[in-house]
């Protein structure tokens, strides 16, 4: 593994997050979503990605952040996971940034539980701190999930 890595970055409720570029399939603007009743609350809904049905995970809910304001439309960061393509709903797309391994550090234990569990570490950039998101964990477990009730 080389010392330099490229991250696709985005913002979610003020958090600056990144995902390895090779895991990102594409970034698209807001798509009409079909909500899935009784689904865990972190699931934003289903979108039609050129004939393929893709599940969208609402990162704000997933990370235990404030809900998106009424009328604000999220963007889709479509990532490749073991389960096929999954979309991450984010507020805003940032640049693709190059980060160096030397600037990497584990997340401090004082971070909120959800955010700590879903991030693998933090890159100390010149101006910001960039959190590296663990996409597999983000997509796989659906806590905080509201258990489907019959």
């Amino acid at each position, binding site marked *: 593994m080389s010392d330099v890595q490229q991250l696709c970055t985005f913002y979610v409720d003020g958090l600056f997050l990144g995902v390895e570029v090779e895991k990102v399939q594409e970034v698209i603007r807001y798509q*009409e*979503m*079909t*909500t*899935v*009743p*009784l*689904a*865990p609350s972190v*699931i934003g*809904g*289903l*979108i*039609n990605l050129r*004939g*393929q*049905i893709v*599940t969208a*995970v609402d990162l704000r809910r997933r990370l235990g952040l404030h809900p998106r304001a009424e009328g604000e439309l999220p963007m889709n960061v479509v990532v490749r996971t073991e*389960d*096929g393509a*999954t979309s991450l709903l984010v507020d805003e797309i940032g640049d693709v940034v190059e980060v160096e391994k030397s600037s990497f550090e584990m997340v401090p234990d004082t971070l909120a539980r959800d955010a700590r569990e879903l991030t693998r570490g933090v890159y100390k950039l010149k101006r910001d701190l960039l959190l590296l998101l663990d996409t597999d964990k983000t*997509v796989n477990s*659906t806590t905080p999930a509201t*258990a*489907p*009730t*019959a």
Partner: protein
Amino acid sequence: MDDLQEIIGEFLIESNELLDQFEGDLVALEMDAHSSELLARIFRAIHTIKGSGGTLGFSRLAALAHAGENVLSRIRDGDVLFRPEIATCLLQMADGLHQALSEIDKSGTEGGLEFSSLCDRLAAICPAASPVDDVPAPSPEGASVAPGDELQPTVPLIGELLVHAGGVHAEQLQGALRVQSEGDPRKLCEVMLAEGTVKAEAVVDALQAQRQAGVEAQNNNTIRVDVGLLDKLMNRVGELVLARNQILQFTSTQQDTKFLSTAQRLNLITTELQEGVMKTRMQPIGTVWNKLPRAVRDIALGCGKQVEIEMAGADTELDKTIIEAIKGPLTHIIRNSIDHGIEAPELRLACGKRAVGMLNLRASHEGGQVIIEIADDGGGIQTELVKQKAIAFGKIKAEEAERLTERELLDLVFLPGVSTAEKVTKLSGRGVGMDVVKTNIEKIGGTIELKSKPEHGTTIRIKIPLTLAIIPALIVISGGERFAIPQASLVELVRVEADSQERRLEMVHGTPVYRLRGSLLPLVFLNRLLKMPGRAAEESVSIVVLQAGDRQFGLVVDDINDTEEIVVKPLSKQFKALACFAGATIMGDGRVALILDVMGLAQMSRVVREKREGSQLTESHSEASSNSAEGQNSWLLFRAGLRGRMAIPLSAVARLEEFSSSVIEYSAGRNVIQYRGQIMPLYTVAEVIGAPPPELSDPLQVIVHSTDGASIGLIVDEILDIAEEHVAIENSSRPQAICGSAVIQQCVTDVFDMAALQQHARSEVRA
């Protein structure tokens, strides 16, 4: 080189098919040892494999087939009787050939396979076997055709046919062939007729058979296509259907007639294309079933039981992927049926059954679905045992178990880790199984149901869709969202206008119901179930009547759109816990809509449970009015004495029993019987209706009727049938204990009054 590869490839496919057929035929021959037709087919299959294998230089394969052929020819000639050991040995030979074929498939050669011990065993099984035709492959008959034809055995040779039909001996045929090869220009049959070795009629028959086979060979203009290619094609067609739907949606806003007519044509062509591609993927279920007789034989031998398998509807067609998917579950169920269901021969005889257990497989189409039934006549499932096991394994709590109905107890079998087998056998009983079967069936959108009657056997009913990829569905709207309901579970649609709603949607103890032609239909409000916003109560609603297993329920939705062909796409694993959705699809406008899982909905809303209250209701009802039987639609038909055909509502029947008349005892002036730890009084139909008592036959057929924990037995002459019919009862002149007469199954049938039986029993107790 490629040519040779191609030829070998064809040889492999053909030989594998022949071997599958060979196995099935051989097991069938075991049942019907005198079928010369079967024997001829078996013989021909092995002969072809030997011939082609030998020509291609697979000498060990050919030698093995030759050894098998020798055994077969001795059976055909009547030198040796067909015995189970021979069958076993021949099946082992088939396994050996399979092995050789797969080795050839892998490496192109026979590798290090060695069959000499198997060949020796085959030779030993019919001792002193003087090999009938000791000529190595290609066979002597092959000499009369051009060498190139050998690879494609299209039309059987006349000599071969004559030998199979027994019209001529193989030696005589060889003699005639020798004459021919020495330059005699006459036809083979002419030579033999002249020698007097064959009768003219036999030649005529053989010629006819040959012509028939020729016609069949000509009709055989098929090609083999890689399934992967078909899958790809099917996917593309799926996308095309979606695009077509989108264009059709678009047409509603367009006026251009040229565009509209083009869209219409596109629509038609797409539909036809879709149907065509779908058909290419259809396979008869027989392709899976063919392998079963062999499996049944092996399993039965393995557990020391005798089992016969009967199959009906083998030509029922299913999508290839579904065929593949049910293979495993089907074999598992059959293994279970034989290992746990069917009893050992001694036990069966002791129970008064035939020593040979029966396994019935039936497949049929029903409303866009395929129904597969696997029934055995074994010991059935003892629900008490299932309950204990489930408690012992910690699957349910004891007090919970007490509340379960029979049906729910049976369903415990599908829990992982629950097995009722007394001991773990090498075949089954480890408790992994039925849960896997159920998951696999449900994965392909099917349902599985288990019915069991202690001592009478178990029936497993599997319902599966014809195809997975594209299904017709009804689009409904609820809570502002669109949902697709698979048409297969749809029964009917009812619209309830706003002004009549209050009157039509009634409540029973807080549960909404609807009176559908006199019977109560439980209602499920989709928006409430899915916790979605509802609409104002004053608007009209629609009820979608759905079939979930053997229950019906009404799904209340805001609106009904249209039916559409939808392409089913699976949901990702985040939604696995949601039983109410079967998948998702993309609608004409490009948006995603969820597909409802009818069975899941029913389970969530507790529709699919045994109607405990329901049956009690009908019983107490029947005491109040003797006419309550009206409107019932399941009837048990039986024959009793001079009154002939009679019927009672099936809901009044607890069980059907057969008793030997020797177990009848006498108490307080009446026939009684010890039944499940109780003393059950027995009545004949004649005495309830006030006719002279008939003579009792042996064994007694008894309908057991239970109320408040007490059972009454009604002796009848014969149980006829169960009819599902909605009948009108006419009660013009009614004798005692008869509700009236009705036409059931096109016959006038007296409806017996169960209330009168209860009254009769009570009055006797008082007296």
